[in-house]
């Protein structure tokens, strides 16, 4: 086994002669690449564009809600704005965000493979994503869509005059991008692991991606067929959602939520994976209860399919179904609870540093917890009767989606930035913006819990004046949040062009992705890796030259 030591840090050329970024500069070399890292970078750029677009819509929403009357936007426009905000943020930003960017980039690196199992399919899924994005943007330019991101029938089929078909088509197409990504990940994780990389040596990020992929494979086809039926119903009136001839509009909700509830776990599991990495790295400790974190991801993926009816408690669904779904909703919260406890316990007796990614990680813990616990409010069926379709829901899901997944995504981008680009960003601005995001976020969405309990319904362009004060808070918070999110765009871009060079393993982390140069070469590793250490083994056993690294570091960051 002469290769065992080959992967040690000393043997890594600090800078590969040709890395994946410098391996060809033509547009063609990017558009026809099969390199998972390049595909990830293209995803990163595309997703950022959609995030900004979605954020622009969010700003419009908050500005309109500054005053009770619908003065800035007419209600027709407002309806389009929040629908497009939701559709873009969910389908074009949050669902692909972590899997397609970080997952794509890191999974092969983490398991020691040259690439994903099906590089061409990977590229295909990027193209499909682009087509979907183009369709949706085209629909927006045509005049947009006003059905809410949930497309409830019969409004979407017979009453809306907006471009439901086009957007539906976009969602349909986008689904296949998600499916192919999931398929690729599952296969890759099964067959492409390096020698020695057993299941229980996998980084927890990979476990989380695996669970996410399961949901993508099992759920996404259903949304595809659902929007197909929706389009047919709209085009030619097949009648299955049309009560006038015996159809059932609630059937649409069943089909929609069969996917879209599990989809919320597509929108959190990858984030949980990132957090596991962050917490363990920045406390330099193996994650507490590794197996429990790993299996709870799978449990969430599986049980997540049993609770979709909690979105339909007052929809006219049978009350018995409501009770069963409420019960199962409680059950599915347990694995998340296990995760939160294990993460917190990991900190115990660690060696904790507070770099920007860790700040995001800690903020995630708090915000996801609040978001998740308010999920319990909503799962408690008697309470939901009052809360559903109010701002309480809006607050709940922004806490989990923005406070959870978006923060995890940002933390992950910062954490692996040096690996992806080989550059170092400004730690100072990183911390400032993380703080701004945290403060702004809470100011934006916490008042919405109160608004919700007071009874302010969601999707309202105008509202009774007594709700104004809290809305002003919320809008003020959104401005801070907006600034906090704009900063990273600036300093990260700056660092990409002008930043200092990063070393291959700035964190002295035992993971395989850190045992290749930054940025990695095209086929990831100069020498095929063989894994002889356990996951998260920060000590000398991992073969890293920790003493040497200590000497080169000036002082611990506090």
């Amino acid at each position: 086994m002469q290769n065992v030591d080959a992967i040690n840090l000393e043997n890594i050329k600090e800078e590969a002669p040709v890395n994946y970024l410098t391996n060809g500069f033509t547009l063609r070399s990017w558009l026809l690449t099969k390199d998972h890292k390049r595909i990830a970078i293209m995803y990163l750029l595309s997703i950022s564009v959609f995030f900004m677009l979605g954020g622009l819509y969010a700003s419009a929403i908050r500005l309109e809600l500054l005053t009770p009357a619908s003065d800035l936007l007419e209600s027709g426009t407002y309806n389009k704005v929040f629908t497009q905000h939701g559709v873009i943020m969910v389908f074009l930003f949050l669902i692909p965000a972590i899997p397609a960017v970080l997952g794509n980039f890191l999974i092969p690196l983490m398991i020691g493979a040259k690439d994903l199992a099906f590089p061409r399919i990977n590229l295909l899924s990027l193209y499909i994503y682009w087509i979907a994005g183009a369709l949706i943007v085209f629909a927006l330019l045509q005049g947009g869509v006003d059905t809410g991101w949930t497309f409830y029938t019969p409004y979407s089929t017979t009453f809306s005059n907006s471009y439901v078909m086009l957007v539906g088509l976009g969602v349909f197409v986008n689904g296949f991008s998600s499916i192919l990504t999931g398929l690729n990940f599952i296969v890759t994780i099964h067959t492409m692991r390096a020698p020695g990389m057993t299941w229980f040596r996998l980084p927890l990020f990979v476990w989380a991606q695996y669970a996410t992929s399961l949901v993508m494979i099992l759920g996404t086809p259903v949304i595809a067929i659902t929007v197909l039926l929706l389009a047919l119903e709209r085009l030619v009136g097949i009648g299955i959602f049309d009560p006038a001839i015996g159809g059932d509009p609630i059937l649409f909700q069943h089909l929609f939520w069969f996917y879209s509830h599990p989809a919320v776990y597509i929108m959190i599991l990858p984030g949980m994976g990132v957090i596991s990495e962050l917490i363990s790295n920045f406390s330099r400790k193996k994650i507490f209860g590794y197996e429990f974190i790993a299996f709870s991801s799978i449990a969430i993926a599986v049980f997540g399919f049993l609770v979709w009816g909690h979105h339909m408690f007052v929809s006219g669904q049978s009350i018995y179904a409501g009770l069963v779904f409420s019960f199962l909703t409680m059950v599915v919260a347990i694995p998340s609870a296990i995760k939160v406890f294990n993460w917190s316990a990991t900190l115990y007796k660690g060696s904790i540093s507070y770099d920007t990614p860790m700040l995001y990680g800690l903020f995630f813990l708090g915000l996801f917890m609040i978001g998740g616990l308010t999920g319990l409010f909503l799962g408690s069926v008697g309470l939901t009767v009052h809360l559903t379709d109010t701002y309480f829901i809006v607050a709940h899901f922004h806490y989990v989606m923005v406070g959870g997944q978006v923060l995890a995504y940002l933390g992950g981008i910062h954490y692996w930035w040096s690996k992806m680009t080989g550059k170092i960003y400004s730690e100072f601005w990183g911390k400032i913006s993380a703080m701004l995001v945290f403060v702004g976020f809470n100011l934006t969405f916490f008042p919405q819990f109160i608004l919700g309990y007071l009874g302010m319904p969601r999707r309202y362009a105008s509202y009774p004046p007594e709700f104004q004060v809290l809305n002003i808070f919320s809008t003020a918070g959104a401005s801070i949040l907006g600034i906090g999110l704009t900063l990273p765009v600036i300093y990260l871009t700056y660092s990409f062009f002008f930043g200092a060079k990063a070393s291959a393993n700035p964190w002295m982390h035992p993971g395989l992705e850190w045992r290749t140069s930054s940025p990695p070469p095209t086929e990831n590793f100069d020498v095929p890796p063989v894994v002889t250490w356990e996951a998260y083994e920060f000590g000398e056993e991992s073969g890293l030259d920790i003493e040497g690294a200590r000497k080169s570091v000036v002082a611990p960051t506090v």
Partner: protein
Amino acid sequence: MEHRVDETIEVQQDDHQEHIGLPGYFAVFLILFVGTIVTYVVALQDLDGALFPGANTLVALSIAFFKMSCVILFFMHVRWSSKLIWLTAVSGFFWLAIMFAFTMGDYLTRSTGTF
């Protein structure tokens, strides 16, 4: 130091070759063929009246299920595949069952009717 890439995939390439051989394939084919004819003929008999309501449906679907199993096990070689493939195949149908069960769970227990 010998870690397998995947503990669950233990099929050797050669295993793929002689599964049931030609006679086997034809036998399975025959079963499928007969199954189809039987489904057809039985569907024309009024089992609902003779046995119990829903008997026709039950018989037709049982035969279909049986035929499906034959195709999956023999034509698709799952009979000789790794546990992982078994699990994959089964989970597909399991999730489908979840979708059926919970959706119908709502429809069958609704109290308010349509008009």
